[in-house]
């Protein structure tokens, strides 16, 4: 048969040309480099408040790590499933109120003891996420975004108006920890770091698991995934609830740090927008992206707040930055950088192939391949 001719015709699609360049799979070298990078990040995060121990700096670091956790948790639902939630402040606020009210009613004294209730706050956020998710996840895409915003406002109003439970606009005061000086911020920093570790482990676990594969599949085509046996509602709901856990814990640590909480700060739309922008900036749907985005944005925001003490300037900077990201790096920093690195590797591999003298073995290989592939087009374009 006219193997060559037919083969050529199967490669007609313009898309296949992308595939025909030698795409280099990540080798052991790269994987080791990746692991080394993660270890370096971990060491940097642990050592940071010990090296830079000024309270002004550790305060910024605390908020940054807290938002790294929140953005990672947000991303482990929204980034993987493609369902953009602008209602995660519900979990943040619920976590904050949970720990505040527990401390109030159990008459907890300030100290390490309060931290034991942080996971409880995460648990309460999960419980709230179940009915919230069941309702919101009945809708898709844009409608889902609107529903989550609506749910967020409902919870803010509830915090104001259920004053028998939440003490309304008076807010709730938490016990004051007995720590002074540098130690205060450092302890909270490490508490936030613990939440970050939990959020990262959950996020990475989801990303690598079969469960995560189902989430990613439904992000690309939900109906098609359903037709392959993916129980879409269940998968989405579980991811939503799991992401609520870490966000609720972040809210609890935040509340304890501030010492008193009010409805408009615990349930703030700024939180909703921040975590989304952080994830988008760093790289939507990647593990490291939200870390980078949160580290950049939250430290910037805190710095502006401290430096200029006017609450609105950083919002303008935020807006400008967001526009720049959308225009220049619509996919976020991490995927863009990873992609150009991959392309550079491919170019280098191609250059190395071109530099070699034309090996006779390549032709023989192709011929034997054609014999094995019984129908000539079995190779179906590209190789």
């Amino acid at each position, binding site marked *: 048969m006219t193997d060559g001719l037919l083969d050529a015709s199967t490669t007609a699609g313009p898309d*296949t040309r*992308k595939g025909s360049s030698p*795409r280099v799979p990540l080798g052991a070298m790269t994987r080791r480099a990746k692991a080394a990078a993660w270890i370096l990040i971990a060491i940097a995060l642990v050592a940071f408040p010990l090296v830079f121990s000024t309270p002004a700096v550790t305060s910024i670091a605390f908020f940054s790590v807290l938002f790294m956790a929140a953005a990672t948790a947000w991303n482990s639902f929204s980034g993987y499933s493609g369902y953009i939630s602008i209602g995660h402040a519900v979990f943040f606020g619920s976590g904050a109120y949970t720990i505040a009210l527990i401390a109030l009613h159990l008459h907890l004294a300030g100290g390490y003891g309060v931290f034991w209730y942080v996971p409880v706050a995460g648990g309460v956020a999960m419980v709230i996420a179940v009915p919230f998710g069941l309702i919101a996840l009945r809708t898709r895409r844009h409608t889902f975004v609107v529903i989550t915003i609506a749910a967020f406002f409902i919870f803010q109003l509830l915090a104001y108006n259920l004053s028998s439970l939440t003490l309304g606009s008076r807010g709730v005061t938490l016990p004051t920890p007995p720590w002074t000086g540098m130690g205060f911020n450092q302890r909270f920093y490490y508490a936030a770091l613990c939440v970050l570790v939990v959020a990262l482990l959950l996020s990475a676990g989801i990303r690598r*698991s079969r469960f995560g594969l189902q989430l990613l*599949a439904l992000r690309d085509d939900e109906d098609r995934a*359903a037709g392959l046996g993916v*129980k*879409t509602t269940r998968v989405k709901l579980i991811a939503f609830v799991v992401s609520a856990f870490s966000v609720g814990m972040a809210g609890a640590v935040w509340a304890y740090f501030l010492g008193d909480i009010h409805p408009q700060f615990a349930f703030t739309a700024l939180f909703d927008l921040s975590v989304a922008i952080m994830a988008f900036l760093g790289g939507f749907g990647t593990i490291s992206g939200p870390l980078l985005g949160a580290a950049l944005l939250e430290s910037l925001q805190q710095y502006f707040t401290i430096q200029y003490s006017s609450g609105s300037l950083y919002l303008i900077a935020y807006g400008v930055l967001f526009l720049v990201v959308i225009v220049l790096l619509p996919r976020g920093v991490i995927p863009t950088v990873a992609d150009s690195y991959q392309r550079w590797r491919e170019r280098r591999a191609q250059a190395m192939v071109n530099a070699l003298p034309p090996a006779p073995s390549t032709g023989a290989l192709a011929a034997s391949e054609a014999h094995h592939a019984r129908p000539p087009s079995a190779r*179906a374009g590209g190789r």
Partner: protein
Amino acid sequence: MSALLEVDSVSRAFGGLVALRDCSLGVQEGEVAGLIGPNGSGKTTLFNVITGYLRPDSGTVRVRGVDVTRATPARVFSLGLGRTFQLARVFSRLSVMENMLVATQRHEGWLRSVVKGQSSPAERARAKEILEFVGLGHLGHLPAGNLSFGQRKLLELAYVLVADPVIILLDEPAGGVNPTLINLIADRIRALNERGKTFLVVEHNMEFVMSLCHSVTVMHQGTPIVSGTPDVIRNDPRVIDAYLGGSDDEDDEDDEDDEPGGSREGGSWRHRPLTM
């Protein structure tokens, strides 16, 4: 008669448009059944009803004797009925291999699929084997979005096969695909059929249908009008009328008119084998 797939007087309307009208169809185990008909005759709607994407207004659908009329797509799939879509739908941001692994959870309970980590080496090996079978073995690491349309069709067939379905519904497997790839697809369907897979194929390419299918059903305006072997279908005047838009009344008149001059070259076009 216990068919593998039984559609019993299913009707479905979209507003005033009746897409399926009292539609009945049976697919026997081990056959490749064809479903043809002009555009808008309800073929894809029927597929959507069978696979749980649409609910019929009336009638029942049974897969292997189990009533799936109101089942979800995931449930229908778990009973061993897989399908492909007319415009090959793959998960474009996942790699080809990841696409292959999406369906591996079919035999698991939901909790297990949540807790379980990555796919086992055996599952990966099997996915790889199926990829080789459809000729995409060397593309496993590519994002599926980079594949050509024909390759996407092959990938869609492949990742449905991963879950080892008993019956596979193919919606225009040859549509928009070059002739070489059409032959490959037909060849793979035959090979799978020999291994015991049952197929129901919607297709406009007559050559493809007639050479591949053991039985063919023709749909017209939401109702199956004829069913039989390819030879029967080829020579049935109702089929030609359905495609070329003659109504029954005109048909009779034309027959009378044509009969005396039937020996004319041009007059016998309606009774020639269908080669559209």
